[in-house]
């Protein structure tokens, strides 16, 4: 641990891979009121390098842990292909197998538990007001610009689930996270409204080759959104 005097920062964002786009946007824009750190750096997957933030004393803390669990469940088509109802999304693809939403909730909550635990362990180190940030929304379709690692080829042969299904899984993840963080007195901040199209999908300009992470333009939107929300 560092023995230096704590460094005051206005808003500290701690998280994992979804912090990267924000971090880059902060660097690009020369923001001084925001600091974003991927806490895995130097620590490995699902581990936290506390040295990275041990000496920081923020006025506000924003947690951005996990976020891809909905993709683990629903990015690649299952066999049999499934759909579910998640109000306000009551659409259902008729030839698909219905999975009860409450069962998916249990499954998704179980998958989210690890990231939530990591987020709360980080939170314990701070006494300032704490917020949690939603991950990037679901993309509409994978197009020719998308490029996933070749290791995905086997999975992609099974097909990518329709956007309507993935959009509901994303909404479910956000609802579960909002409820879980609320129990800890942590305010949940949804993704920027400007980041989605009229159907709620992540705008194509906001992701590059990897549809599960936003790009630096998305990061810029998040930075602006955070300022709006936190200053309101």
């Amino acid at each position, binding site marked *: 641990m560092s023995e230096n005097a704590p460094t005051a920062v206005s808003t500290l964002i701690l998280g994992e891979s979804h912090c990267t786009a924000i971090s880059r946007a902060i660097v690009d824009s020369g923001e001084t009121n925001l600091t974003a750190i991927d806490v895995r750096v130097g620590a490995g997957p699902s581990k936290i390098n506390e040295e990275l933030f041990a000496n920081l004393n923020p006025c506000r803390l924003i947690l951005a842990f996990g976020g891809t669990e909905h*993709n683990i469940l629903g990015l690649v088509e299952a066999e049999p292909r499934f759909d579910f109802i998640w109000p306000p999304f009551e659409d259902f693809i008729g030839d698909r197998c*219905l999975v009860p*939403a409450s069962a998916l909730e*249990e499954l998704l909550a179980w998958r989210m538990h690890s990231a939530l635990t990591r987020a709360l362990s980080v939170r314990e180190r701070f006494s300032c007001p704490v917020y949690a940030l939603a991950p990037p929304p679901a993309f509409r379709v994978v197009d020719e610009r998308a490029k*996933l*690692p070749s*290791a995905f080829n086997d999975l992609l042969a099974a097909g990518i689930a329709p956007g309507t299904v993935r959009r509901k899984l994303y909404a479910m993840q956000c609802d579960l996270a909002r409820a879980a963080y609320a129990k800890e007195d942590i305010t949940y901040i949804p993704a920027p409204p400007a980041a989605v199209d009229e159907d709620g999908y992540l705008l194509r300009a906001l992701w590059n080759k990897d549809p599960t992470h936003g*790009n630096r333009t998305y990061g810029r939107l998040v930075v602006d959104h955070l300022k709006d929300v936190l200053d309101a």
Partner: protein
Amino acid sequence: MPERASRRRHPYAGQPDRQFWRKEPGLNDMARFDPVGATSFDIERDDKVVTAGSCFAQHVARFLANAGFNFLVTETPHPLLSDKIAADLNYGLFSARYGNVYSTRQLRQLLERAYGTFAPIVGAWRRPDGRWADPFRPQILPGGYVSPLEVEHDRELHLAAVRRAIEEMSVFVFTLGLTETWTDRRDGAAYPLAPGVAAGDYDEDIHCFVNLDVGQVAEDLQWSLDFIRSRNPGVKFILTVSPVPLNATAIDRHVAVSTAYSKAVLRVAAEQVTAANALCDYFPSYEIITSSFTRSTYYADDLREIRSEGVKHVMSLFLKHYAGASGDAQPSVPQARASTPDITRERTRKSEALMQVLCDEEAIDNAL
């Protein structure tokens, strides 16, 4: 004219020991109590067995599956769901997820709903937590349905599974449980639980209590058997009566009195229907548990639930008489799906590993 001499001294002379109380081995050794008579058929290993009825019927499935019989399950969980979640959602408890079918009225209406001849007015009940329940199996989904539309979609899947069970089964084991039921005055829909208990709102103007009598129970049961055979003529039936007393009675009298009435009605109706139908047996699980030969020792401390020893006694005799199995029967955890390699779980496992790769690479690769 001299009276023609009878071959027997009196009608009881020469009858089998089982017809005499004092000759029952269970008098001295409870474990030897065996009131099961001749059965009209055997259950072969490849016979597809479907079970339904009150909670006691769940034991039949668990023991049959463990004994290597073909317990038919037509409503299976999506492979995404873990075995624990599937069990929580009551997959595999019965052949389809109808939950406890306590009354013969419920059984009849389950068949009518499955084949589209009865469409109840009410399709979903609101739960106290804001979610929704299927009025005809209000506890089937512990987390509740998120909307009436989800109830409707899941019910369509469920009723299709009921139809498959009816049309594929070789043997149907039905356990009669209750005569007391709650119905909707408007269309006669019979509910397994009174509205307001687990979900829904009780309204005296809409809901009414019905205590079925022998004629009604027998009529519903006979209708059900006839309907099943109209769809699947080769089905063989085994009827049993649950030995579990009523949890509560809606009648202003002691619950023990209502229990006695209910079990008597069910027992008589089962007798009548058994007598009227070929390849339809009555199996005396009720008697094995409640008879004084077993000295009330098969009831748990609450004097209502049945101890595992009692269930084993019942099921050992069931397997002995229908399948020629000897020794103690053992239950198993209900299996809602075949133990075949699962593509979806493998894909999910791979997805998780590869998402980790994407997240790790995000710091390097998504910098445009």
